[in-house]
């Protein structure tokens, strides 16, 4: 691609829009956010991913100004936000619970923030109509929130937060209640809005596919800490820990003892009496240290015979097959009892050539297919 890649986080001259500086948030003696530092740049689409209760909403609420950090600092556009109330921040948030005003119609809900800006009436009307069209709510403009469906409410909440065209938009699971088609359309709509307005998005999602689609960077969180921040591709291909690998997509984790063989080559001894697996990593592991190979199912080849010259090959027995239409996932039990998932595209309709239950097969992968992790 000729166009320059959007990666302001790699540019040392770029000023971040949001800076978390050693932020800790405690509720009583419970630590919801644990000494977190993170920069987020203008025009980013920053996705927060993590299990329930890991502190995603808390991070959003601190950005919106509903919670103050117990320790540390949050800067937006270089300004310390400690004493800036929510209504004076150029930030809008879409609430996980939607928080629609029950006494106002859909139209008035969307217009609410615009009226506070003292926008002239005709401009305001246009803007609301635009938002209604965008979220396909024109038909429901006169209804009250309790008279529309859950997905429609979610769209009202989205429209309401978008209406003011803020510099920073916080979306707490904005698309969870939408069906797949509408969700995808809305995702593209969001990316489009972002393209046009240059708004910075911080988005919480439970749907990693969504994070992969929309995000410029993904942060995987656990228990109030960010475990890894990287582009979707990098986080998928090069997770830095078993936790991240496991959280994003399907993965096989093979545990073993590491042994250095070359500058960046390692052998992972995963079972006595079997040839170790070979892998490359820039990570420095001590000999004998526990190491993990994380390998995605689609990177493993299934074959009837041992492939010639494969760096890593192991024989096993198929215990389960999941047919996914365009793909099949084979669950193969290898010596030691570990079940490895391998995915193969169903390119041919010749079902008689496919493997079936109880078949002995060979699994193989290349030197660089898996990542070596130390934790």
């Amino acid at each position, binding site marked *: 691609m000729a166009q320059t890649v959007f990666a302001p986080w790699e540019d040392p001259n770029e000023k971040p829009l949001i800076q978390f500086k050693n932020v800790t948030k405690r509720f009583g003696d419970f630590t919801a956010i644990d000494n977190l530092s993170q920069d987020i740049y203008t025009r980013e689409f920053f996705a927060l991913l993590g299990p329930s209760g890991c502190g995603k909403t808390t991070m959003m609420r601190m950005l*919106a*100004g*509903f919670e103050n950090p117990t320790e540390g600092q949050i800067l937006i556009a270089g300004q310390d936000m400690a004493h800036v*109330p*929510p*209504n004076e921040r150029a*930030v*809008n*948030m879409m*609430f996980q*619970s*939607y*928080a*629609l*005003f*029950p*006494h106002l119609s859909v139209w008035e809900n969307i217009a*609410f*923030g615009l009226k*506070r*800006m003292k926008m002239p009436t005709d401009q305001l009307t246009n803007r609301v109509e635009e938002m209604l069209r965008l979220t396909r709510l024109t038909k429901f403009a006169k209804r*009250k*929130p*309790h008279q529309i*469906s*859950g*997905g429609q*409410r*979610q769209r009202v909440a989205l429209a*309401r*937060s978008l209406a*003011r065209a803020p510099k920073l938009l916080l979306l707490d699971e904005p698309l*969870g*209640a939408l069906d797949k088609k509408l969700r995808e359309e809305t995702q593209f709509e969001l990316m489009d809005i972002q393209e046009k307005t240059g708004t910075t998005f911080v988005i919480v999602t439970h749907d990693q596919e969504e994070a992969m689609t929309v995000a410029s960077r993904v942060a995987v969180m656990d228990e109030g800490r960010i475990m890894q921040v990287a582009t979707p591709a990098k986080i998928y291909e090069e997770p830095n820990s078993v936790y991240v690998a496991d959280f994003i997509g399907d993965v096989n984790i093979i545990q073993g003892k590491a042994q250095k063989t070359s500058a960046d080559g390692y052998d992972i001894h995963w079972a006595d009496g079997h040839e170790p697996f070979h892998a490359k990593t820039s990570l420095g592991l001590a000999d004998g240290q526990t190491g993990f190979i994380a390998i995605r199912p689609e990177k493993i080849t299934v074959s009837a015979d041992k492939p010639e010259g494969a760096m890593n090959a192991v024989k096993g027995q198929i215990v389960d097959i999941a047919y996914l239409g365009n793909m099949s996932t084979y669950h193969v039990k290898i010596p030691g009892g570990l079940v490895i998932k391998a995915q193969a595209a169903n390119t041919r309709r010749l079902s008689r050539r496919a493997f079936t239950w109880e078949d002995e097969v060979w699994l193989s992968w290349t030197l660089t297919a898996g990542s070596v992790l130390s934790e």
Partner: protein
Amino acid sequence: MRRFTWFNATALTLGFAFLYLPMLILVIYSFNASKLVTVWAGFSTKWYGELINNDAFLDAAWVTVQVGVVSSTFATVLGTMAAYVLVRVGRFPGRTLFSGMIYAPLVMPEVITGLSLLLLFIGIGLDRGIFTIILAHTTFSMCYVSVVVSSRLVSFDKSLEEAALDLGCSPFTAFRLVTLPIIAPAVISGWLLAFTLSLDDLVIASFTAGPSATTLPIKIFSAVRLGVSPEINALSTIMIGIVAVGVITASIVSKRAAVKQQQDEQAAARAT
């Protein structure tokens, strides 16, 4: 399932008879043609007519209405503010003490409230009259308003206010545009309750009323000491009517609107 049995019916009848028979008799005798309270001499509305010409009673009634409207309005404003702070402003030093103190007047004997107010007014040299009654009524009825409003606020979804702030409202605007409209039924029923309480009150009013202004209950009470006249029956009937309308409206308003609002709110707050 509960069934209708004779026992239930009897219990119900007895209970209601106990509650309402005295009032019923009063209402009936207010339409008595005879001047003697205990002797029935045919139906007449003449006592109602005579009431209209009784300036002392009319003055007292006017004072009572003024006191009721003004004091319940003050009480509603103050009570709502107190409830809002106690429910919303999370923890602050002395919060438990404050919330305890705001409810204490509910259980305080009225005589004590009245007496303490009287001492206060004398102490600060305030002449007793309509103004002092208003102050006194505001004081005790704001606790009731605060109880009614805070029970509504407890179930109020705080994120609605946050959303309002997020969309550019100052805390006060957020309260005015979002919180208040939503809790309005509770506030209105609080007002009605305060108004009814103020109409009813004899004890506190008699401590704080002065020669320049008396309320209807005081007037009735002192008139009765000279003997019950059918005129008073008529007056009492009217008061029963007003109070009944007030209480029934209050309960209907709060029940219906609060239930509906809460459903709306919950529906709006939850996904699907």
